[in-house]
């Protein structure tokens, strides 16, 4: 696959939370890259550090959290080393973000038009009328009917899907190079979810921006992403293009995740849906060696002692495992 130049390069990122009960290594040595115009899906279950990773990219980690190591190279510059003021100019202008809860992501005391205008006025030196004109264009761009009327409406007058469109309009207001979508469709109905996905894909094609698509929903990444990074306990365990991941998952965790998705076959054979044994380990007491070893059917003595490195086992396919699965899964969809 032909790829553009590297836009974002996260290298060995470590974000720890220093709580009263101990140190939580929410992101513990994550690395991934996003090329220009690429959609990278970051997948994992709750608590695997996906959201913390996105907040770390934005440099919005709050106390007691702290980025303790690693680099976030965006357009050749390390964001970790930026001053708060420099970062503020990047946020919204070059990197934007949309959140999970469209119901609460808009300020209830301002009209939606007002809030999109703010996003424009914070970064661009334009007049109020110009900003208003652009806001209405943006509302139209994200598929909101009657943008002139919607401009003067308050968030509570809009439905969840509409609000998420407004959030997208806000995120798009300065033509960012990278859009981080943190579970942006999770809180929506499936039908609305499909519309929002369609909109994001469409905008991505039109503008050529890159998207970091964070979700726990495997079906969604298959729909959206070019590449996938699977996260487990703050580390990337598998990284490849969508096709390889779904066709030949090599990490036992990825394999288990894909297996636990109901398919037409499980329906036919009436076999119980396979699940991954056990639970995500407590962040305060990570197991020695590979963090997945207590739940892994293939774990050996070595897995209980050593943490495997993320290694390229095939061109473009990186896996953090001593015993990568070599069974081919029948293709999805």
């Amino acid at each position, binding site marked *: 696959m032909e790829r553009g130049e590297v836009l974002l390069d996260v290298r060995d990122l470590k974000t720890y939370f220093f709580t009263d009960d101990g140190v939580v290594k929410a992101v513990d040595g994550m690395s991934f890259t996003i090329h220009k115009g690429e959609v990278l899906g970051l997948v994992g279950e709750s608590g695997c550090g996906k959201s913390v990773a996105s907040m770390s990219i934005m440099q919005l980690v709050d106390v007691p959290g702290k980025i303790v190591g690693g680099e976030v190279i965006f357009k050749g510059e390390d964001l970790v080393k930026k001053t708060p003021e420099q970062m503020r100019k990047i946020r919204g202008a070059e990197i934007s973000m949309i*959140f999970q809860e469209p119901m609460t992501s*808009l300020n209830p005391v301002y009209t939606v038009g007002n809030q999109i205008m703010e996003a424009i006025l914070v*970064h661009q030196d334009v007049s109020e009328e110009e900003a208003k004109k652009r806001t209405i264009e943006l509302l139209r761009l994200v598929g909101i009917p009657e943008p002139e009327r919607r401009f003067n*409406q308050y968030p*509570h007058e809009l439905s969840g899907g509409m609000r998420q469109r407004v959030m997208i309009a806000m995120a798009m*207001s300065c033509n960012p190079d990278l859009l981080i979508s943190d579970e942006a469709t999770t809180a929506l109905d499936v039908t609305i979810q499909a519309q929002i996905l369609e909109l994001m894909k469409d905008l991505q094609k039109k503008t050529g921006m890159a998207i970091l698509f964070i979700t726990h929903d495997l079906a969604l990444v298959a729909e959206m992403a070019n590449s996938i990074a699977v996260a487990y306990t703050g580390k990337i365990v598998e990284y490849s293009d969508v096709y390889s991941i779904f066709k030949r998952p090599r990490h036992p965790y990825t394999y288990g995740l894909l297996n636990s998705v109901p398919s037409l076959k499980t329906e036919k054979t009436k076999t119980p849906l396979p699940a991954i044994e056990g639970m995500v380990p407590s962040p305060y007491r990570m197991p020695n060696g590979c963090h997945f070893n207590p739940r892994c059917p293939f774990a050996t003595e070595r897995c209980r002692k050593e943490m495997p490195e993320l290694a390229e086992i095939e061109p473009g396919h990186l896996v953090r495992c001593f015993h990568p699965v070599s069974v081919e899964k029948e293709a999805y969809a």
Partner: protein
Amino acid sequence: MAVEVTKVGEVAGGRVETYWYLVGKRLRKHKLAMLSLFVLILIILACIVGPYLSPYHMAELGSTGEVMQPPSHAHLLGTDELGRDVLTRLFYGGRISLLVGFSSVFSALVVGIIIGAYAGYYGGILDTLLMRFTDIMFSIPVMPLLIVLSRVIPGSGVWKIVVVIAIFGWMTDARIIRGMFLSLRENEYVEAARAIGVSNNRIIWRHILPNSLAPIIVSATLGVGGNIIYEAALSYLGFGVMPPTPSWGNMLQNAEYAMAIAPWLVWSPGLAMFITVLAFNYLGDGLRDAMDPRLYR
């Protein structure tokens, strides 16, 4: 005081209702609060217009025969020990008392909002420092210090009182605002604002503050009444507004020794203050009910 529960955003008569519209609507149903509002407007108007309508000047001395006259046609509320018209002085005194009440609440609010907002928004060490400072201010016995301060701060008159009251009046506001900021800063719209590059100051003043207005308004309304009493207490002790400028407080103090022979000198400022403070308290109560967030979920 039965209040109808209406959801924000509910459409009534084809009109989408905003929060403040609903608050107004509910306040109008609160009879005591509306009566208080009416009385307050009346009192404020009287204090503004009254002195122009009165044939007397507040410091105008009467002849010997006019000293301590009971209420009559010429002097509706009688005269004081210097033969001055009590009604005229009551209007002037009201101006001063209300001015002190409003401006001290306003100044205290400005200080309280600034301290509370920064403490609540930034948290951490700044929060600890500011809130411990607030605790210290809280534990100072106010009255003796007020008396000392009003002696130490040079100058006399109204503004000194305002400053003195504000210095000791901001702590409750600061705590309320800090609490509001602590909870509101966790809102996703704050995170979203940060994610589009809005500066911290702008988030504090433009995004969080407007959302914490309700308790501020209630506390301010109740505060005006409280501070009128404060001023009266200071004036009564002789440390407040200095004669000949009248305030309800120093009129009361003046009248103290004459209580037996000229009770109208006590009743007039006393009742004026009583009614005003009561009205502020009822209005504050009404506002609190009307803005109760539990009714807007």
